């Protein structure tokens, strides 16, 4: 065999190998590979998730699911770099705050009509809202998170409180009583924990307090932010007062709450599994305390499954997602089962909430499920992530005494309105 013949033979073999590895085009009955990107890489989570993927592959032998996972902090980067590098996954599991950017960049495929009908019928309105942008549903809602007042039962009892605070005044009073200082004046036990340095950790509890003070984050037509109005200033002043009185110490972290050194904080349901291990039978959950006679409300954020617009496997991708999120023989959907058993999260599908009622009736989880009735979706507005970070920095500036609450929120509002104008 001469060199030319060898070369031709090698190219032929290479072409066959490449052909075998390449996914079949849409509509073909050949093997289909679906690349699914999530931020669920923990071994304990994969132990529940992978068998679900395996089951679908067993039922659909022509489909191969390749699950890629990255840490939450890297998820958006993976999506953007995958897009640039031409290695975009077929299916994403993403945070609904990113939807405006994804939609305006033509990243997402519009779900088929039957999927949209299924979502509108099977999910609560707040979850449909949380998966919609510009009057269009963009994917299957999955996990729902809300915020509630989480408290250490023992520390509240020691502070002489028989029930969790329902109003801001009660919270201020209980937090002050539950605060302990050492001989050197250093706070050894904090009455209330305010998280810093993390946009969601600062803004989500703050927004929950804002809405429980009859405030608004953004105008109904999304034309401008409203968080710098009187209720927002009062909310920030309330937090600043807690810091000034020593009831909230900015040096404390979530670890301190888990170590039993903090009496109360406002946090989401995903923290439950860790808290149950750290403080067994000692953690209580209550609605967000209110001010000025307002109804208790809380922030809700969603995650959803979306399909990349550039995928060649759109039909198979939606078929897989319909199966994954659909009730199985009258019971929970595979996704609902995964969310409740592995992730300790609240599933967005109403039938999943009913099918997993025993798990969701748990003393820690139930108040979060109940709060869905009055919760409000995190505003899905253009530049939402950037606006949230701007607000976080300005709230922290007020906490650290660099600015008055009014000045801090006005600065944040000016910047937020500029971002809204740019990205609209």
């Amino acid at each position, binding site marked *: 065999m001469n060199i030319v013949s060898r070369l031709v033979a090698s190219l032929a073999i290479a072409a066959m190998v490449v052909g075998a590895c390449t996914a079949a085009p849409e509509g073909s009955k050949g093997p289909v590979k679906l690349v699914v990107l999530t931020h669920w890489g923990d071994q304990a989570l994969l132990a529940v998730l992978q068998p679900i993927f395996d089951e679908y592959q067993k039922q659909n032998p022509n489909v191969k699911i390749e699950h890629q996972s990255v840490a939450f902090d890297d998820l958006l980067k993976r999506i953007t770099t995958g897009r640039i590098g031409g290695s975009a996954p077929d299916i994403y599991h993403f945070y609904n705050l990113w939807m405006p950017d994804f939609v305006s960049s033509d990243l997402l495929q519009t779900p088929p009509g039957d999927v949209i009908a299924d979502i509108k019928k099977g999910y609560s309105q707040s979850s449909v809202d949380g998966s919609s942008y510009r009057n269009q549903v963009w994917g299957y809602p999955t996990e729902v998170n809300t915020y509630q007042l989480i408290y250490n039962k023992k520390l509240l009892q020691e502070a002489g409180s028989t029930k969790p605070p329902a109003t801001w005044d009660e919270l201020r009073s209980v937090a002050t009583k539950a605060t302990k200082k050492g001989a*050197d*004046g250093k706070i050894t036990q904090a009455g209330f924990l305010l998280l810093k340095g993390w946009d969601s950790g600062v803004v989500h509890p703050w927004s929950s307090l804002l809405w429980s003070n009859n405030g608004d984050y953004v105008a109904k037509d999304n034309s401008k932010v409203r968080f710098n109005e009187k209720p927002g200033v009062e909310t920030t002043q309330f937090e600043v007062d807690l810091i000034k009185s020593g009831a909230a110490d900015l040096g404390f972290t979530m670890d301190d709450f888990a170590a039993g*050194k903090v009496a109360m904080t406002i946090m989401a349901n995903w923290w439950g599994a860790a808290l149950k291990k750290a403080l067994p039978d000692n953690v209580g959950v209550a609605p967000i305390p209110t001010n000025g006679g307002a109804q208790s409300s809380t922030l809700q954020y969603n995650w959803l499954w979306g399909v990349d617009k550039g995928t060649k496997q759109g039909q198979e991708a939606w078929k897989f997602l319909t199966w994954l999120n659909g009730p199985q023989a009258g019971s929970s959907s595979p996704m609902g089962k995964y969310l409740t058993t592995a992730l300790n999260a609240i599933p967005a599908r109403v039938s999943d909430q009913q099918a997993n009622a025993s798990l969701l009736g748990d003393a820690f989880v139930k108040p979060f499920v109940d709060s869905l009735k009055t919760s409000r979706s995190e505003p899905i507005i253009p*530049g939402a992530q950037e606006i949230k970070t701007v607000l976080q920095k300005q709230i*922290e500036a007020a*906490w650290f005494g660099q600015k008055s609450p009014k000045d801090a929120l006005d600065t944040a509002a000016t910047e937020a309105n500029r971002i809204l104008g740019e990205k609209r």
Partner: protein
Amino acid sequence: MSIAIPSVARVANGAAPRRRPYGRRALAGYGFITPAIVFLIGFALLPFLFTVYVSLHDWNMLTAVTSMPFRGLDNYRYLIFEDPLFRQTFANTFVFAAGNVAISSLLALGVALLLNGEVRFPTFWRAVYFLPYVTSSVAISIVWANLYHPSYGLFNGILELFQLPGARFLASLETAMPSVIAVAVWHAVGYYMIIFLAGLQSIPLEVYEAAKVDGANAWHRFRSITLPLLRPTLLFVAVVNTLGSLQVFDLAFVLTNGGPVNATNTVVLYMYQTAFNFTRMGRASAMAVMLFLVILVITLVQLRLLREKE
């Protein structure tokens, strides 16, 4: 025995000039440097040119490169005139660089002088000081974050032992930046110590002996011999340390994520947040170009100042 005939003589004798050996040598030379040139073009020059190009556009990395809208110098104008946070991160970066370069260089020189003298187990001590440098900066940041922890951190534990009030270190506006600088210094001292040690050991002993004969004491010998002869090493340390400090990212990212209230936010960290959290790659690229120009100017000034007496 053959005698080499100069080429001029050969031309004079009517023979054609022989360029082949030179051409072959040149070709071999080009061959040797080709991988480095290709590497530089592919991984430095082209990305830099692309960064400059992107800095003139608005791009969120989700749309095609070919469809990004042209913005001219808008990104630069915004950063310079309308973004106070960009100015703050530049100021933070300079504070960090000044503190880190001054303290780590002085400490490294001091340790190098000690280890260059007569100490027992010099290899052991060199290894001890060098160890932090070979440890991942992310790993040491996590360890130091725990050491600094206000409630259960080692440092506050020690202060408590001596009945001193505890500090908040990374959680306080006043102490956050010094705390980050302290970690950077601890991380870098070993590396610059080795560089200084190499510089010290290249100074001929005869010069010191001659100075001793002339009655120069230790301080005079350090000032008149060590420092002048160490000038190239000082130049190297100053330039490399400044370059690294102005591009600090990992320590600020892991230890504080730029907080509290941007007190430790640096240009590169802000660039990263702008690019990957806010998907504003055009603006982040403009930051990168501006930081490059600033570093270029500072490096040229340093080279000029430290070389002028050579």
